């Protein structure tokens, strides 16, 4: 466990306090203390099965879907515990949105995919929707490619386009935090570049937590980095510190490729 209390600030967007997570008897995460600040990108990296995906899903309570899952510790969004009984979990998920590793376009048109989230809540006028759709698709760097075929089925898009569509879908909710779980893992380098560029722009208005595809991606776009190894938070600090001056030898070993 790393004592991060020194850099924990009071105005963090998301705070994890001594968080542990178990699937049945197996622990996926142990005693994590972490913060995500406004307008920054946190890259959570580490070898496979280290708990990175679990960590992301805790942040919007997607872990509630796991019947065997058990959470210890507390998670705060803007200072409020997200497990408080008066918290609307459906609303939480509109404030903390997630993009998965494998793009899952809904079997609907591109337009219907993007407007799916907003329409779950209150009704919106057509003009409002059109504006929202364009804004979201632009922010996801997809607008130019689909603006003439919004009624086409989303499944007709290429892999890279589908993933950007999933990003646009989340952006349409106007979330405060965006979680991305290896968003570029199936994508070609050009699509990856487009997504990364989009994220760098988005960070100006949102907080972003990303599980990067590799450590290079983490150093390319991250502000802060967290190294997760077998459920334990081994290293946490600015990207520069973690990658050039890691405090733990395990971090150094992983970054330099001595194990993976």
């Amino acid at each position, binding site marked *: 466990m790393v004592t991060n209390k020194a850099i924990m600030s009071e105005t963090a967007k998301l705070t994890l306090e001594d968080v542990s997570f178990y699937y049945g008897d197996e622990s996926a995460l142990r005693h994590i203390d972490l913060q995500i600040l406004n307008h920054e990108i946190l890259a959570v990296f580490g070898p496979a099965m280290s708990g990175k995906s679990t960590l992301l899903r805790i942040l919007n309570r997607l872990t*509630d*879907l796991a*019947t065997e899952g058990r959470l210890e510790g507390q998670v705060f969004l803007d200072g409020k515990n997200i497990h408080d009984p008066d918290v*609307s*979990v*459906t*609303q939480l998920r509109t404030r903390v949105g997630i993009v998965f590793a494998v793009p899952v376009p809904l079997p609907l048109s591109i337009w219907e995919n993007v407007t799916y989230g907003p329409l779950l809540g209150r009704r919106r006028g057509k003009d409002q929707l059109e504006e929202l759709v364009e804004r979201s698709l632009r922010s996801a760097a997809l607008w130019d490619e689909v603006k003439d075929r919004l009624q086409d089925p989303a499944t007709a898009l290429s892999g890279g386009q589908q993933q950007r569509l999933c990003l646009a879908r989340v952006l349409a909710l106007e979330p405060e935090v965006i979680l991305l779980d290896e968003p570029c893992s199936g994508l070609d380098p050009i699509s990856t570049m487009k997504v990364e560029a989009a994220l760098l722009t988005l960070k100006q208005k949102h907080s972003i937590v990303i599980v990067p595809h590799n450590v290079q991606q983490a150093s390319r776009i991250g502000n802060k980095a967290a190294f997760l190894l077998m459920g334990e938070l081994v290293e946490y600090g600015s990207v520069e510190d973690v990658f050039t001056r890691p405090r733990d030898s395990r971090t150094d070993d992983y970054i330099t490729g001595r194990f993976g």
Partner: protein
Amino acid sequence: MKTPTIPRDVNWREFFVEQLIRLAGASSIGFVLLIFLFLIREGAPALLEVPLSNLVGQRWYPTFDIYGLAPLVLGSLLVTVGAIAISLPLGVAAALFIGEIAPEWVREILKPAIEIIAGIPSVVIGFVGIQVVSPLVREFSGAPTGLTALTGVLLLAYMALPTIISIAEDALDSVPESYRHAAYALSATQWQTIWRVVLPAARPGIVTAVMLGVGRAIGETMTVMMVAGNAARMPLGLDAFLRPVRTMTATIAAEMGEVARGSTHYHVLFVVGLVLFLLTFVINLAGALTIFRRGRGGGGRFLA
């Protein structure tokens, strides 16, 4: 698959819809109870009016207030056993053919054909039985009439086939490929593999198929009523198959139209219905439990 155990937000419309859906789910329990209830309601008076010794007797002569159920039960059993004896080997063979031997294009024809067989109304099969099968049976067996247990057996076997085939197919399908590969690796022929490896491995599933086929056969009404002869006599002796016989189902269907409501005969017919209800419940339950225990979803096929 479901979206399980999310602490749901208090949203009255969602809550209302969910309660409706839950109610629909519970409705099946309600209907089963209703069926049981009304069978008892209309059947119980018989148990009071007719002594038990009468009910288990070997003679069914309602006009003389003799209500021995034995000939009816045995009639059902005879016809069912006969039908399964034919449709089991035939059904397993067909399932084997479809699953292991047939080329794709043959399969594409056979499977819809079997579905169609399952869809033929029982009254049509009974009709064909009267017109075609019964005269043939009379020709070949020398019996005085073609309306015999054998005729019923033949037709019933045909009707039970789709059930047995589809479950046997599932059973054969769920035998892991690795079993077959291992046998081939030991240079077994395809037939040897099937006979010595696949079939034994699929045995529990085939037993299930039999149980559900039995359930189907015992419950069949119109066909047996139309061709099996309708003589409520104890089917004993070696030539039982060549004589007319009466099943429980045919008895109810044939006599209910002529009884006075509220008469003892009327109540006894409901008792017969109750016996059928309990019997088929036990059989189908046993069959379905073996499906569930083997971990397969079972799908809806065995309900077809």
